[in-house]
């Protein structure tokens, strides 16, 4: 797996103050579990994303700790409460120096 990969964040662009905003994220990653073997019986080394975090308005609203039992191309649907206009930062980190990050802006009225 390369050191970074494609990510998609899907969420509304605007929200009213106090509204609960749904967020869906997906990241391209094989999530090699470390439990598979080659034809010759050699174990394939683990290579997964370990951590995902969403930061909004200066605070961590959601974090996930991933283990090999997460499916390939990990996706999460979660929520946050709209407090003020700003950017949401999404960060993934993993084995072998993997890192991805993306930001998305939310206008709160």
């Amino acid at each position, binding site marked *: 797996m390369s050191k970074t990969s494609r990510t998609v964040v899907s969420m509304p662009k605007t929200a009213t103050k106090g509204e609960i905003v749904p967020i869906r994220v997906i990241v391209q990653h094989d999530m090699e579990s470390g*439990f*598979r073997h080659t034809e010759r019986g050699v174990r394939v080394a683990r290579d997964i994303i370990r951590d995902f975090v969403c930061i909004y308005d200066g605070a961590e609203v959601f974090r996930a700790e991933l283990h090999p039992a997460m*499916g*390939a191309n990990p*996706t999460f649907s*979660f929520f946050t*409460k709209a407090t003020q206009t700003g950017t949401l930062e999404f960060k993934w980190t993993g084995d072998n120096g993997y890192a991805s990050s993306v930001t998305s802006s939310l206008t709160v009225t």
Partner: protein
Amino acid sequence: MSTSRRSFIVALGSASVVPWLNAQATTSEAVETIKKIVGQAEPRVGRVTLEIAPLVENGNLVPMTVLAESPMTSTDFVKAIHIISEKNPLPNIVSFNFGARAGRAQVSTRIRLLTSQRLWAIAEMNDGSFWQGHADTVVTLAACTEDVLV
């Protein structure tokens, strides 16, 4: 790709089903993992719902939703939800941490399941109490066992 008789037998013996069977977490390992999460506290049953299809065709990508009942205010919110497996090679599947502004303690994702089993969801509230829920599922095609890489 041509496979010689010898390499086929090597693959059969060492690569396919055997390591997976050995690598299964037992129910007691799941219990140990839950103990590590809750510490001295005693998890109570309720407030957490784990939704997963009762019959799963392919264990490689199983949709799952977990939901904890909480007002999610700054004084009363869910701190974390842990998903624990009975029979995967490792008992931990995924852990979610929520901030007070998460709005709703609900997450959907996709996981891998080795075989038919019970899954546990352990929720940690900000007051230090723990709640648990579980779901049973039947898996017809296990994750990974068919994967022999070249």
